C-alpha cells in the first residue's frame, strides 16, 4: 500500500489534493526574526546547541541574497509575510495513532495514506507524516526498532539521539551552503530522521509524507538519513498542498550520509499544488538535497518524479568521497500550463574509482519552461572517475521551452566523462502508428511519454512506479490538441 495510492485516481478534478483541513493550529506570529527562532526552538524544547545552530544560520542568512541564476521568474518572496511555525494543536504528544486528532487522520486518509490501517494491515512501508511544521505520526516504529533502525521525526531524534543528530546535522549541507538551505537551517520545524545501524538491511521501505495546510505558511522540513557501514535502506518521499490562490513556500533540506559499503535509495514523487492553468497560486519549491558517500563502496541513488509545484529549484547531489563510491540520478520532470522547473543534479567526484550516472527526462507542455542544470566535477585526486550523463527533453506544443545546461569540470586526466543531450518533439510517425491502431491521440501521447520515461520509472519502487505513471498522464491532460 503506497501513500500515493490514490494520487493518480482518475477523478474529474485534476489536482485532487486541493482541499484544506480545518484544524486548530498553534501558529507563531508572522515574520522572521531572532525571537521567532527562539520561539520555535523553545516550543520544540530544543537543546542549546541547536538554538545556537539556528541563530548562527539566521545571522548568516541576513547577509545572503536570493539566487537569481536559475531560469525562473516569480514574484519576489516577502520573507516577513510568512508564518514560520504552524502546528496542529494537541495537548500532549500522541503515544499511538489513537491519540492523533481524527481530523488529521482523515486528511491523510483522503490523501491515500491510511495511517491507521497501516498499523493493522500487513504493509511494507513505514510512514512518517509531516503536517505543516510538525511530524504527526510515524508508523511501524516498534518493528523497526527490533532491528535497531531509528525512524522518527527529527525533533524526536534531537531529544532521544542528540549525539547522532549533532554529529551529522549540517555536515552534508552546512548552513552556509545557499540562501534557501540557510533559511531552512534557521527555521526548520520538523522532518524525518533515519538511522540504519551497521550491517542492517532495512526490512521495509521507509516513507515520509509532507503536507502544507495552513495559509501563508512556509514549510521547512529537514530530513537526515544515516546509513552506517554495510547497511541498506530505500526511502520514499511524497508531498501535496491545498489549492490556494497565493503562493506557498517550501524550502527543505535532505541530508544523507552513506558510510562504508552502505547503500541508500531515495525516491521522490513531488506533487505539490502546481497552480491553476493561468499560473495563479502553487507552491514555490526550493529544495537542497545532498548525499555524501563517505565510505568505500558507498552507493546512493536518487530517483525523482517531479510533476507539481509552480516553481521548482532542486538539484539532488552526490558527493562521492569514498573510493569506489557510486552516485546515480534518475529524474522525470513534467511541466504543464505555467509551471517552471529548474532541476538537475551535481556529481562531485573526489575519491578514486568513483562513478556516477545521470538520466534525466524532461517533458514540457503548455506554457511551461523547464531547465536541466547539472554539474559533474572531477577533483584532481579522483583517479579513474567515470560519468555518463544523458538528458533528453520532449516538447509538447509550441509555447513551452526546454533548456539544458550541464556543467562539466574535469581536473583529472584519467577520468572518462560522457554527456549527451537531445531535444525533440513526439514524432508524427509514432503518433500516426498508434492512431492507426485505434489509440486516441491523448492516449497515444501518454503511451509515448511513458515509453520516453521508462528508463527512469524502472528505478522506482514497484507501487510507486505504477502510480507515478498515472500521475504523468494526469499532468499532461489537456496538453494535446
Amino acid at each position, binding site marked *: 500500500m503506497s501513500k500515493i495510492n490514490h494520487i493518480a485516481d482518475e477523478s474529474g478534478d485534476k489536482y485532487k489534493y486541493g482541499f484544506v483541513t480545518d484544524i486548530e493550529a498553534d501558529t507563531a506570529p508572522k515574520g522572521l526574526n531572532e525571537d521567532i527562532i527562539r520561539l520555535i526552538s523553545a516550543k520544540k524544547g530544543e537543546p542549546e546547541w541547536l538554538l545556537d545552530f539556528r541563530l548562527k544560520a539566521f545571522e548568516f542568512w541576513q547577509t545572503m541574497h536570493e539566487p537569481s541564476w536559475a531560469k525562473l521568474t516569480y514574484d519576489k518572496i516577502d520573507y516577513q509575510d510568512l508564518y514560520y511555525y504552524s502546528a496542529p494543536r494537541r495537548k500532549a504528544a500522541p503515544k499511538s495513532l489513537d491519540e492523533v486528532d481524527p481530523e488529521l487522520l482523515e486528511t491523510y486518509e483522503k490523501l491515500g495514506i491510511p495511517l491507521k490501517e497501516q498499523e493493522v494491515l500487513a504493509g511494507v512501508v513505514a510512514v512518517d507524516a509531516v503536517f505543516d511544521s510538525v511530524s504527526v505520526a510515524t508508523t511501524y516504529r516498534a518493528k523497526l526498532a527490533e532491528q535497531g533502525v531509528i525512524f522518527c521525526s527529527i525533533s524526536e531524534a534531537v531529544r532521544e539521539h542528540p549525539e547522532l543528530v549533532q554529529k551529522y546535522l549540517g555536515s552534508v549541507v552546512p548552513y552556509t551552503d545557499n540562501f534557501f538551505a540557510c533559511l531552512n537551517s534557521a527555521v526548520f520545524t520538523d522532518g524525518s530522521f533515519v538511522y540504519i545501524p551497521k550491517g542492517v538491511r532495512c526490512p521495509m521501505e521507509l516513507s515520509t509524507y509532507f503536507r502544507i495546510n495552513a495559509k501563508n505558511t512556509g514549510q521547512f522540513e529537514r530530513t537526515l538519513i544515516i546509513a552506517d557501514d554495510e547497511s541498506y535502506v530505500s526511502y520514499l518521499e511524497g508531498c501535496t498542498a491545498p489549492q490556494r490562490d497565493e503562493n506557498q513556500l517550501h524550502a527543505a533540506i535532505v541530508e544523507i550520509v552513506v558510510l562504508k559499503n552502505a547503500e541508500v535509495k531515495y525516491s521522490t514523487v513531488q506533487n505539490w499544488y502546481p497552480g491553476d492553468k493561468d499560473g495563479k497560486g502553487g507552491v514555490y519549491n526550493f529544495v537542497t538535497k545532498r548525499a555524501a558517500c563517505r565510505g568505500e563502496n558507498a552507493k546512493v541513488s536518487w530517483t525523482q518524479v517531479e510533476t507539481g509545484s509552480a516553481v521548482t529549484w532542486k538539484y539532488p547531489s552526490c558527493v562521492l568521497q569514498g573510493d569506489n563510491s557510486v552516485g546515480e540520478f534518475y529524474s522525470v520532470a513534467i511541466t504543464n500550463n505555467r509551471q517552471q522547473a529548474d532541476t538537475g543534479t551535481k556529481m562531485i567526484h573526489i575519491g578514486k574509482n568513483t562513478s556516477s550516472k545521470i538520466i534525466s527526462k524532461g517533458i514540457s507542455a503548455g506554457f511551461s519552461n523547464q531547465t536541466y542544470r547539472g554539474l559533474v566535477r572531477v577533483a584532481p585526486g579522483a583517479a579513474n572517475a567515470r560519468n555518463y550523463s544523458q538528458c533528453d527533453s520532449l516538447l509538447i*506544443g509550441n509555447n513551452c521551452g526546454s533548456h539544458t545546461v*550541464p556543467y562539466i569540470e574535469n581536473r583529472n*586526466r584519467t577520468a572518462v566523462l560522457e554527456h549527451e543531450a537531445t531535444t525533440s518533439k513526439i514524432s508524427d510517425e509514432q503518433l500516426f502508428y498508434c492512431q492507426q491502431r485505434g489509440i486516441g491521440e491523448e492516449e497515444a501521447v501518454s503511451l509515448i511519454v511513458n515509453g520516453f520515461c521508462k528508463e527512469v520509472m524502472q528505478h522506482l519502487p514497484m507501487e510507486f512506479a505504477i502510480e507515478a505513471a498515472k500521475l504523468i498522464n494526469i499532468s499532461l491532460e489537456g496538453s494535446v490538441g
Partner: protein
Amino acid sequence: MSALLQNISLIGDEIPWLGKLRQKGREAFAAAGIPGAKTEAWKYLKPRELDADDYVFSVSATPKSVDALPFDSYRLRFENGRFCPEGSNLPLQAEVVPLVETFMDKEGRAPFYAEQTDWIEKYPFAALNMACLNEGIFIRIPGGCRLDKPILLDCHICCGGENLFSALHNVVVLEGGAEAEFVEYYHYTGEVKSRYFNNIVNQIFIAENAVLHHIKVQDEAFKAAHIAFSPVCVGAGGRYESFCLQLGADIARNETKVMLNRAGAECEVNAAYKVDGWARADTTTDIEHLAPCTISRQLVKGVIGGQSKGIFQGKIHIAKDCIQTEGSQLHKALLLSDGAEVDVKPELEIFADDVKCSHGAAAGELDQEQLFYMRSRGIGQEEARQILIEAYLDEVISKVGNEQIRAWIKLLLHGE
C-alpha cells in the same frame, strides 16, 4: 587597465557616428568592468587579473621585415596593432580598406554596419574595443562576387618593454551571393618580455545566399591575452563556416555569436585548441536560431597539457516558432597531464517544438592501447603521442575546405 581609456587620444572623435560609437563603448565598458569569476559568462576564464596591469597603445608601426605569405592570399598586415602598408596587398574586385579610411568617407557604408551593436552591454571586452575604435579593416564583397584568393589579416606583435594594447575592429560584409575566405593570423616574434593584450571584434554580415569561410589561428606569446568576439548575422540561404585554432596566449577567448536571421541560413562553427604550460584557452559560441529551417553544426576538440585549462561554453538558442531547425554540437577534450583541467558548459535553450537538437561532451586521456600499438611498432613514446594528438585534432582540421590553408594549419600545429 583603467588608465588606458583615460590616456587614449584618437583621431575622428568629431565625426558624429564615430564619436557616438566610442562613447557608447566607453559607457558600456565602465558599467560592466572586467568580469571575474562571479560573472557567469566568464566564470571559468576569470579575466579580472588583466585589470592589474597597465597597458599602452603602440604608436609606431615599422616592421623590421615582413615574412613571406604562408599561402597564396591577399594580405593586410598589422604590426603591433597598427596597419602597415608594407607587406599589404589588397584585392581590386572588392572593397578592402583599413577602417580609418572609411571614417571620412561620407558616402561609405561602414558606419551603417559598425553601428549595429545591440549586444554591446553584454560583452565588456567588445565595449572596450568599441571605445578604442580606430584600427581594423572594412571588407565589402559586392553581390555575386567570388574572391579568387583568401584575405589574410596578418597581425604581428613584436613587443618591447611596455605592456601593449591593441584593439582591432573588423567589419566584413558579404552582399547577396558573394563568397570569400577571411583568415586571421595572430603571431609574434622575438622574446616577449612584457605582456600584451589583443582585443578583437569582427562584425560579420552575410547577406542572402552569400558564403563566408572564416579561419583563425591564434598563436600568441605565452604572456599574451587574446580576447576576440565575432558577432555574425546570416541572411536567407546564407552560410557561415568558421574554424579557429588556438595554440598560445596566457588568457585566450574566442567567442562567436551567430544570428541565423532568415530561413535557410546555416552555420558551421568548428574549433580546435592545443594548450600547454599555464595557459587558459576558452572557446565560446552562441548560436541563435531566429528563423525557421535554419541549421547549425559545431565541433570543438581540445588537447590540454601541463597545468593548462581548456574551456568550452556553447549555447544553442532556438526562438519561438522557429520550427524545422537543427542544431548539433560536440565537444571533446584530451587531457595529457595531471594538472590539466577542462571545463565544459554546453547549453540548449529551446522554445519551439519541431526541432532536432543535440549536444555531446566527452573528456578522457590518450588511449593506452593505441600508444602501445605504435610503440610495439618501433615508434618512440613522444613521437607516438604527437601522432595521436595530431590525429585527434585532424577530425576537425579536415573540415577546413581550402587545401593550402589546411596544410598551413597542420604545419603550425606540428610546431614548425
